[in-house]
């Protein structure tokens, strides 16, 4: 694999990995070159990001994981974004957590985090304080983790009469059974066979 190809692949993989980053081992596995090549590629990528003023992203190594981040130089701009708290970039997490709780309730925080792949303590706390989500019980087993579910206020907020009014998820649509088919088929074929 030539160097350009390698670099573009490392960049793309780190990009989709986002905040989670990737280890050299993972990169090696997906790009299928030697770990040595990956390491060389990572350090070249790093110096390119650093040297090029046009770039707003940098490569950060944290506990064996490589991760793309923004450069400290652009912090002033990111601050402007943070000062505008209704921005979708900032609120996407809350909506995502709410969606998970609405569809998978009752659900523990650990399960929410497992689905999202990131810590979700703060969005959950915020949703509870806004009364869209509430404690609905405790999970069985050790720890007896809190189970969360949606509230009346949630229904109110989204203009729903009951939680059943939520549009179903794709897999739920799939599961609607075709049981009557057989019965019908028999009748249908009988009819045809008679003709």
């Amino acid at each position, binding site marked *: 694999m030539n160097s350009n190809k390698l670099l573009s692949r490392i960049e*793309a993989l780190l*990009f*989709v*990995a*986002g*905040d*989670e980053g*990737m280890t050299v*081992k*993972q990169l090696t*596995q997906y790009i299928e070159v030697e770990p040595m090549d990956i390491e060389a590629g990572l350090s070249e990528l790093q110096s390119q990001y650093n040297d090029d003023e046009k770039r707003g992203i940098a490569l950060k190594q944290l506990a064996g994981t490589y991760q793309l*981040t*923004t450069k400290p130089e652009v912090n002033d701009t*990111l*601050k402007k*974004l*943070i000062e505008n*708290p*209704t921005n*979708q*970039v*900032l*609120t*996407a*997490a*809350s*909506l*995502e957590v*709410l*969606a*998970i709780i*609405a*569809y998978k309730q009752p659900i523990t925080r650990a399960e929410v985090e497992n*689905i*999202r*792949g*990131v810590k979700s303590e*703060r*969005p959950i706390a*915020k*949703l509870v304080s*806004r009364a*869209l989500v509430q404690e609905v019980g405790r999970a069985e087993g050790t720890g007896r983790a809190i189970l969360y579910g949606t509230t009346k206020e949630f229904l109110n907020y*989204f*203009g*729903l009469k009951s939680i059943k009014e*939520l*549009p179903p*998820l794709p897999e739920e649509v799939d599961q609607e059974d*075709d049981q*009557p*088919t057989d019965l*019908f*088929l028999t009748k*249908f074929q009988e009819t*045809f066979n008679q003709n």
Partner: protein
Amino acid sequence: MSYEVKLDAFSGPLDLLLHLIHRLEIDIYDIPMSELTEQYIDHIHAMQTLELNEASEYLVMAATLLAIKSRMLIPINEGEIDTAELEVDEADPREELVARLIEYKKYKEAAVQLQELETERGHVFTKAPSDLSEFIPDEQMVLFDQNVNVYDMLSAFQKLMRRKQLRKPLSTRVARQEISVKDQMRSVVKILKNSGGRVMFTQLFEADDKPMLVLTFLTLLELMKRQIVVVEQQNNFDDLSVLLQKEDIEDEFEQIIE
């Protein structure tokens, strides 16, 4: 006649009709009704699995075809009706059906275009928004915009599921990740190439987790079946050797899965 027709292949009676028109090389503006009706009914007979919802639609269409056919069979004596009158008063009984077929065909083709876009888009990936919450003071954190609705929530969920697809193998439990036979075929062949086309059977089974061992074994069977490798044993109780027979296996992969 007892050939089996998969209903799944058609998305409805109009789709089946278009298929027949195409296969019989019929001019859609001049449909021979007897032939088409006969073929259509044959197909319905042959359909082994018909879903409750759809069956009635197929039957209604069969009835429609028969009705059109019979209307066209009503004999017309040339003396009685002159053609000028006919042109004005009497519509072709097929007209409505043809119009429906043409309208439907338009969207069927549009669906193909959408599918191409879907595939193209499937080649491109994005990332989750970065988590900036640590920079935001608690009191400043807002949930979301006031005019968020149920569909926004659903779409947030969809986005999540799409990302999750990519994230699953990224989790720390790399060992549990599933590798396909196809992937494993590649790596077995690679090992063979790197060691001059011949390795000891046991060398291929150095991994210590069970699923991996099973996978490698299945892979070897597959490679043997495809005559990409042969396994030989010189003497009783000797170790088995695996020999590479075919260097280029890329076209073999074409036939698998995809």
